[in-house]
C-alpha cells in the first residue's frame, strides 16, 4: 500500500500526524504534511487508512493494499 498527499489541498490540520506519526510528519514552515516514504509497512496499513479518512480536507490518497 502506498499513500500520497496533495499539498495544494492540505491545510496543515496535522490530524494524520497525530494518528500515525510513523508515516506522516509536517514541515516547519507551513505545517503541511510530509510523507518521507509513501510505501506503508503492512503493520501500519490500518492506522494509515484511519489517518486518511480523518483528513478534513481529503488531501490524502491510498493506492494498493487491497480494499482501501
Amino acid at each position: 500500500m502506498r499513500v500520497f498527499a496533495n499539498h495544494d489541498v492540505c491545510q496543515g490540520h496535522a490530524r494524520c500526524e497525530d494518528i500515525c506519526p510513523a508515516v506522516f510528519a509536517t514541515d516547519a514552515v507551513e505545517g503541511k504534511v510530509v510523507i518521507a516514504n509513501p510505501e506503508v509497512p503492512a503493520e501500519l496499513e490500518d492506522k494509515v487508512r484511519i489517518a486518511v479518512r480523518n483528513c478534513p480536507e481529503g488531501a490524502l490518497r491510498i493506492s494498493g493494499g487491497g480494499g482501501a
Partner: protein
Amino acid sequence: MTLHFQPPSPDHVPADRIVDFDFFNIPEGVGDPTEIWHDLVRRGVPKIFYTPRNGGHWVFLDYADIVAGYRDYSIFSTYQAQIPNIEPFPVVQPQGVDPPAHNVFRRLLAPMFTPIAVRAMTDELQCRASKLIEELATRGECDFITDYAERFPTAMFLYLFGLPEARLDGFLALANVFFRSTDPDARASNITEIYAELDTLFREKEVNPANDIASAIVNARDEYGAQHDWTDILNCGFLLFVAGLDTVTNTMAYVWRYLATTPDARRQFRERLDDPDAFLRAIEELMRINAVSNLFRRVTHDCDYKGVQLRKNDRVILPNTVANRDPRVFSNPDMIDLDRQVNVHVTFGVGPHRCIGSLLAKREIMVSLQEWLRRIPEFELAPDQPKGAVFGGAVMGFTGLKLRWDTP
C-alpha cells in the same frame, strides 16, 4: 416560522426560505447555547435559510454547504463579513483577506503554529497549567471561567507575544469588554485601547526584538525587503488577540461542564492519562461535540448556489456545531463516542482560513485537562450556578461555571 411583520426580507429570498432566528438570543431556560442551532435542525427548517434578524443573513446547516462556505472563496469571502454588519470593521490579517493576498500574513504566521512549534511550547504550557491548578486544587471550588479558562489562554497569549505577566489583569479586562460588552461606546473605546496596546508593543519589539510572535510580525519583510504595512501589522496582532482567547475559554468551559456532569467520561479520561493517543482521540470527540464558533462569510457576487439565489454582499453564517452533527458524515452524531475512529469535524474550519492556532488550542486544552485530572480527579457542578450565564453570537459559551470538589 414565516414572518409577517419583520423588516422586509430582500426580494431575492423566497418566503419558504425565511426563518425567524436570532443567533444572539438564548431563550431563558436554555442551558447550552448550541441548542438553539440543533433546535433548527430538529424543527426541520430548510438547510439553507434566511433570517431577517441581525441585519439579515443566510444560514447553512448541511456539512457540505458549510464546508463549501469555507473553501469556495470565489463566492464566500471573509472580507468585511461581520454579522450584524459593522463597517468598516478592521481588515484583520490574515483572516479578513481572501487568497491569494491572504497568503502574505498566513505564511508569516504559519511557522509559529506548526506541530513542531507547538510541541516546543508544551513544557511551558504544562508548567503554567500545573501551577494554576495546584493553587486551585486546595480550594475545593472555583469559578472555572474566571479562575482558569480565561486566565490560562490569556497568560499564554502574553507569553507568546512577549508581553510581561504583570499585564495579565489589564488584558483580561480588555478582553472581557471586547467579547461581552453590548454598549457601543464601551466597545469603540475598547477597540481603540487594544490597538494602542498593540501599537506600543510592536514599536517596542521593533527596537528590541526577542523570540516572540510580536517581534516576528513586526520584523518580517515583504518580497521587496520592506516592513509590512503598519495597519496590517496591528490588524494581525488584533486577530490573534480576538481569535485565540474567547474560543479556547469557552471550549474549555464546555469540556469541563460536560466532565463535571458525566462521571463515566471523567473515568475514561483518567484511564487515558498514560495513553496520549487515546487521550487525544477523546479530545477530538469533545472538539467535535463542543464547537463554539459560528463563522461569517460575505457573498462576492450575485449567483445561484444549489438553486438558491444569493446576492452580492449577502451575509452567510456557518455554524460548526451543526456541521459536526450531520448524520451524513458522522455515525450516531449526537452520541459522544470517545473512541470515534473517523472524526472529520470542522471545529477549526477547513480550507485556506483553517484556524491557524488549532494545534495550540488543542494542546492548551489537552494539557490543562491532563494536569487537572491528576490533581482534581473528581469534581462536579456547584449547586449555586449563576443565572443566565450563557450567551450566543459568533462564539457561544458561558460567563460563569462554578465547580466544586472534595479536598483531602
